[in-house]
């Protein structure tokens, strides 16, 4: 792809066997805004901080949580522009699968394809890895699922996970609070509490975003009013 002058990989092995560009990409993710996901017994919730650079920014023009198919949603930590590229490619791949097999793409298949794209950019010529980690939440015939995909292209299924600036505190918090038989509502409360842990400033429906999917298999982003209700319950 691109200019033949750059037909060599920019991500190459260091003498110690590390792929340094990927490590740097993970650092970029680690300085991004915190996001997290929790798999409940009857659904999945994903959430993120939505800290905007100024009060002059119209927060309704920004949506960090995106849906890839009607039953799969995704959130990220890291570089927003890179995320948009992955969302676009994933949506197309989901559609192509549907056109070929006449059924909605299973979550694992879509995750695998996204991961393959991210891996490509760690090996192809003249490109750098994506500076994002994704949390993919979906509900298909195999039930509720939550996957995390890293800049290297590796992916794992999680019961609960967090990424970004506050990852260690958030994960510790989640480890304590997580139970296998959690209901989706409890999971949303836990998600809010986890975000609150490392939150700078006052948490409100304007500076967080929450997406849920349950047995209805419809992924949706909560409206600010719904987030306000949950916040009130948490207080």
């Amino acid at each position, binding site marked *: *792809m*691109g*200019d033949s*002058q*750059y037909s060599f990989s*920019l991500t190459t092995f*260091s*003498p*110690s066997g*590390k792929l*340094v*560009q990927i490590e*740097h*990409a*993970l*650092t*970029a*993710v*680690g*300085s991004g805004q915190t996001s997290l996901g929790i798999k409940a017994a009857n659904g999945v919730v994903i959430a993120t901080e939505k800290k*905007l*650079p*100024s*009060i*002059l*920014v*119209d927060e*309704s*023009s*920004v949506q960090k949580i995106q849906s890839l198919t009607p039953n799969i949603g995704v959130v990220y930590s890291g*570089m*927003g*522009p*890179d995320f*948009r*590229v992955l969302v*676009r490619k994933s949506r197309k791949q989901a559609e192509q699968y549907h056109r070929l097999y006449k059924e909605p793409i299973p979550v694992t298949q879509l995750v695998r394809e996204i991961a393959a794209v991210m891996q490509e*950019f760690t090996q192809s010529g*003249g*490109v*750098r*890895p*994506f*500076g994002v980690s994704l949390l993919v939440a979906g509900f298909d015939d195999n039930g509720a699922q939550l996957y995390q995909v890293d800049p290297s292209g590796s992916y794992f299924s999680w019961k609960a996970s967090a990424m970004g600036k506050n990852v260690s505190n958030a994960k510790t918090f989640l480890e304590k609070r997580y139970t296998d038989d959690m209901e989706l509502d409890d999971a949303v409360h836990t998600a809010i509490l986890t975000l609150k842990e490392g939150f700078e400033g006052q948490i409100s429906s304007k500076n967080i975003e929450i997406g849920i999917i349950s047995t209805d298999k419809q992924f949706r982003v909560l409206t600010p009013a719904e987030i306000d209700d949950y916040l009130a319950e948490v207080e």
Partner: protein
Amino acid sequence: MSRGSGGGYDRHITIFSPEGRLFQVEYAFKAVKASGITSIGVRGKDSVCVVTQKKVPDKLLDQTSVTHLFPITKYLGLLATGMTADARTLVQQARNEAAEFRFKYGYEMPVDVLAKWIADKSQVYTQHAYMRPLGVVSMVLGIDDEYGPRLYKCDPAGHFFGHKATSAGLKEQEAINFLEKKMKNDPAFTYEETVQTAISALQSVLQEDFKANEIEVGVVRQENPVFRVLSTEEIDEHLTAISERD
């Protein structure tokens, strides 16, 4: 021995630095500031106004050819702050894209679609080594059929947001501080208030009073959603209104 700084190339092409930063993108932002121009955009209740300095470095230059304000379609305007040459290629491609959109889909390209297209293009330059990021911050303005007046700002990193008011260029931060105070309580500016807020913000931040031929002003209004560059007479009217007000 580990290649701590990416072999020193992390400053030359857009690969990650050890801290996870993209130096080329950061340098592109510096290039925008180096142009020495400051621009301001303000969104009102039913209009959007953008203002920028018009610095003509040489008296022999044809003033009319010095511009940073470009119509992309009849209804969409783009204010480019930064490197003029990069701005011109971006405008050229944006015009083409908007025309194709109109042809393919049968309706005018909305503001946010254009902003997203510019931002996505900028993202490609941050990920592929063979093209450097553009040294331009673009403010796109127009009246959206559903959402009304819209102002978007796109930067070399590929970010884009809708704004109630914003600034770009040399005195960007000072201008944003000024505008944050003005827009704190979500005021719904009329057309005149919108234009005057934008112009007075620029005057305040640069601490000079302008003459009509030292600034460029572009507007879109809901009552007439065509993108228009104001004439020097119209700019003079607003400047007079501002000085009388103070």
